[in-house]
């Protein structure tokens, strides 16, 4: 006699240890196998886009801090670049170097968090996570020297940065650049060849390059699928065209490739930062921009390669002191598009790991 079974529907989230925020997946399971799923979000909606319409262009910088709160610098950069494009401002060279240094350090910090939590989702009891956070602390210390804050920086301003880096920053940065490659080697020793990690991540959650492009997925997730698309290369902004670095690409597009992308991008970011430290020259760090920026009537969109993908701000100006409309193109939200294709047919455990490897941030998904 065949056993009568029926699928169960389980809500993974909004309160769940590994949803990386208040995210909910309504999943239909057949035993352990995922049959169907539907991402539900909006639990962290704060109306950032609407709030931006009520604030001056300079004040909106603080709102961008709270989008992807583990990568505030990148959000700052994307926003101020959009305003600069709208107002026709060009920041001085030193400011651009400082911005690139902080954005790349932020990329390392964000990838550290992503890698640490991926391993936490894989069930490694804290050790990789705490190691990653140990190094992230040092980056946060560096940021504290730059702007006094550790999470919500608001370091960048329209036309430059808030202040020049103090002398101690360069000493600490030099030491960090010397230490970090060994730390990355340490993670690779512990993780990259780990058989359990390999069996759990290889050929799991595969995202083909066609699906990735169809869903307009960006960032490490796209590059892990083998698509050669990095805005720092294809549309160099700031001073990226003066800097030599490589873009790592995956071959399969599975969870292991996404993990490898982040490890390798950390190395490349270190290369970029040390190149910047070599090239940076003294000078002003802020263009002559008034506090109340009044861009001419018009609209502008500018994007940067954030740690999670293409982060863009579309701003419409009516000539006033506040944006008439501010639309955020957040990579975390759009990277969720292909989730169903990646997860259906996998197991419950694979689902959690794949969600970890996509590296979403709910502050950015819900805005």
């Amino acid at each position, binding site marked *: 006699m065949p056993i009568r079974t029926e699928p*169960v529907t*389980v809500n993974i989230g909004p309160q*769940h*240890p*590994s949803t990386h925020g208040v995210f909910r997946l309504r999943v239909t399971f057949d*035993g*352990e196998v995922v049959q169907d799923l539907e991402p539900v979000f909006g639990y962290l909606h704060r109306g950032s886009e609407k709030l931006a319409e009520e604030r001056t262009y300079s004040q909106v910088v603080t709102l961008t801090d709270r989008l992807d709160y583990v990568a505030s610098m990148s959000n700052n950069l994307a926003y101020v670049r959009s305003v600069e494009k709208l107002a026709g401002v060009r920041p001085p060279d030193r400011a651009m170097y400082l911005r690139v240094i902080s954005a790349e350090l932020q990329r390392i910090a964000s990838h550290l968090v992503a890698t640490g939590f991926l*391993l*936490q*989702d*894989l*069930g*490694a*009891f*804290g*050790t990789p*996570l*705490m*190691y990653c956070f*140990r190094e992230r602390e040092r980056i946060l210390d560096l940021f504290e020297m730059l702007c006094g804050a550790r999470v919500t920086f608001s370091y960048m301003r329209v036309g430059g940065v808030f202040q020049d880096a103090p002398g101690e920053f360069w000493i600490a940065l030099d030491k960090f650049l010397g230490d970090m490659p060994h730390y990355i080697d340490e993670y690779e020793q*512990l993780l*990259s*060849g*780990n*058989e*359990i*990690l*390999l*069996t*759990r991540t*290889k050929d799991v959650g595969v995202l083909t390059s066609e699906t990735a492009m169809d869903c307009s997925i960006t960032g490490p997730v796209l590059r892990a699928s083998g698509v*050669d698309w*990095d805005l720092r*290369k*294809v*549309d*160099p902004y700031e001073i990226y*065209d003066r*800097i*030599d*670095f*490589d*873009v*790592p*690409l*995956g*071959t*399969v597009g599975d969870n*292991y*490739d996404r993990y*490898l*992308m982040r490890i*390798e991008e950390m190395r490349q970011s270190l290369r970029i930062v040390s190149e910047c430290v070599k090239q940076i020259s003294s000078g002003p760090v802020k263009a002559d921009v008034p506090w109340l920026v009044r861009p001419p009537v018009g609209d502008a969109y500018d994007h940067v390669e954030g740690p999670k993908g293409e982060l863009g701000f579309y701003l419409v100006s009516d000539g006033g002191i506040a944006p008439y409309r501010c639309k955020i193109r957040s990579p975390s939200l759009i990277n969720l598009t292909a989730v169903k294709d990646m997860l259906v047919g996998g*197991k*419950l*455990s*694979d689902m*959690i790991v794949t969600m970890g490897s996509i590296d979403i941030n709910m502050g950015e998904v819900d805005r």
Partner: protein
Amino acid sequence: MGPITSANSFYSNLYTAFVDFHIVGVSPIPEWLAYFLAGFIVIFTVINAVVIITTLGTWVERRVLGRFHARLGPNRWGPWGLFTPIADAIKLLTKEDTRPDGIDPWVFNMAPIIFIVPAIMVFAVIPFGENTYVANLNIGLLFIIAVTTVGTIAIFMAGWASGNRFSLFGAMRAVAMLISYEVPMVLSVVGVVLMTGSLSLVDIVEAQDVPFIVVQPLGFLIFFAAASAEMSRSPFDIVEAESEIVAGYHTEYSGMKWGTFQLAEFIAPFGVSAILATLFLKGWDGPLLPSHLWFFLKVCFFWFLMLWIRATIPRLRIDQIMAFAWKVLFPLSIVNVFLTAIEVLVWPNPTTTEWWTMAAINWAVAILSIVIFSRIGKDKMSTRRPIFSSRGSNSSALKGAN
């Protein structure tokens, strides 16, 4: 009173002391009362010692894990945070016991008790030192295996009665995994039993001219892996995988019921370490130091090994865990049983040289079979490296296209 009093153990000495206890003018203690008192005192001592050592063990575990994590661990209450477990216990005991609607109250409330009893009962047959044991059962090992299996039922009761789907997932995983791992676990100790010719743990300790970890490497490794799975410790901790199913079967428990589950889960590694030390590391036997200390040190060694593994490696998936039990551990344990049986046939009463010959053969077979099994899945284990984009540093596709 039968075989219990015949042996020269702590328990029988206590019983004799009670029987011989005379105060002038008072009639001697009746035999049944002496039997009861001696038993009560011994059982009370052992249970409390186990619970107290485990409670302190949680502190050690958290401190050691803290070091593994490059952080400090609990250090607020008392010297080096030593009172943290006491604070934890007070918190758990005074915490409100929340109970969700739609549970099966009888099953729900019984589960923690049924879970903790077998964890403690294991210690009944373990010799803690020379002549120190509660009972020298002639089927001691069988008793341990039989008793620990009851825990599976408790987990399923908890998961089923909670009326929570995460709990149900945990319960189903537990039943599938724990029953699968019973098989290699039992088969791996058959080697030890064949060599000793006895199921009594006291006899097994005394039979080890050479520690059985040397003579039975394969048996040791299989037992260690299978016992880790039986306790659902890392990397087999899918039963209560936090990142996947919240807390598994005890998701809905709170207060001291949850505390009871946790206590049982912390006792289990001590129990398994004690069994490992007894079966494979000569139990309490050792030079110079007192036997009880030797036993404790050996237990701590295995316990630390488990902590180390827990802090290092990620978790396996359910199908991989089942495959590991049936495709790797089960055949390996069969190999071990046959090999040991042949050796016992050839050398029924081994001398020291013959022990070492056996050890050499067993190590060779162990290494060979592990190499063969690891080769089977070799292609899945290969690492990959990222390739690099061929774009030069100054190319600009977007600007070129415009």
